[in-house]
């Protein structure tokens, strides 16, 4: 057998080895496709963090007041420093007839309207009735939190 034929022969053998390797990887990948579904609990933790953490919205003086949120902390910059960047969040705060909306991690948050695609996105909405602390007074408010993350 000359060298050219020999080379072609070996190229085919290397291709067969490559295909076999690919099949082994696919089989290993498929049997290990289990996962722990933690989206719901993570979303629950996230929403509670937003309203209970004094680094996020919770009002604090010498202590943190649970159930009271600080109007001064309701800003995109402040909340972006409080929350990591892999979950999209839309916050809607209603008080005294005024409605304010903030999107955090815009790339995901602006896709909340596509939440019907349950295979791609995991979404949740929760409404909280909270006291809003401004400089001069405490007023009742409604905070709606929408969360969205990729599955």
């Amino acid at each position, binding site marked *: 057998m000359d060298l050219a034929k*020999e080379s072609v022969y070996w190229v085919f053998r290397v291709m067969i080895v490559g295909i076999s390797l690919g099949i082994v990887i696919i089989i290993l990948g498929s049997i290990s496709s*289990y996962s722990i579904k933690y989206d719901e609990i*993570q979303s629950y*933790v996230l929403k509670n963090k937003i309203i209970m953490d004094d680094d996020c919205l*919770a009002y604090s003086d010498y202590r943190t007041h649970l159930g009271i949120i600080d109007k001064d902390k309701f800003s995109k910059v402040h909340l972006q420093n409080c929350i*990591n*960047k892999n979950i999209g969040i839309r916050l809607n705060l209603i008080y005294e007839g005024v409605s304010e909306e903030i999107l955090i991690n815009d790339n995901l948050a602006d896709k909340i309207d596509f939440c019907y695609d349950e295979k791609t996105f995991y979404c949740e909405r929760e409404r909280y009735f909270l006291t809003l602390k401004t400089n001069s007074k405490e007023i009742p408010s409604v905070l709606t939190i929408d969360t969205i993350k990729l599955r």
Partner: protein
Amino acid sequence: MNKKGAIQKVLFYIFYLLIAFIILSVSAGYLNNYFNGLEFNKEFIAKDLGITMDVLSFSPSEINAVYIQSEEFQVESVNNKLRVKIRDLETSKEYNFISNIDDFSKKSKQIWIKNEDKITVK
């Protein structure tokens, strides 16, 4: 077959042996971990410890927790991503933190988590 062809053939056999060794060792290790539950254990520790640390991060006052496992595991946080391994040469399982948590690395059966002003791990 000339001398050049013979050398090429020997090199290919060595290549085959190497590939076979890599495939067998990686597959055997992975399947062994899979069937004795280590892969699932890693996945569970990553999610469970990650969520625990996220919850502790918004405690209104100081709080400590000890996370204990029956065997030693490696845990590290890089760029708010928690990675858990049980052995050195294996793939890690990951969890993306909600909170901003400083980088750390630890190998132990138990991990001390403390929240004063921020989360620290010992």
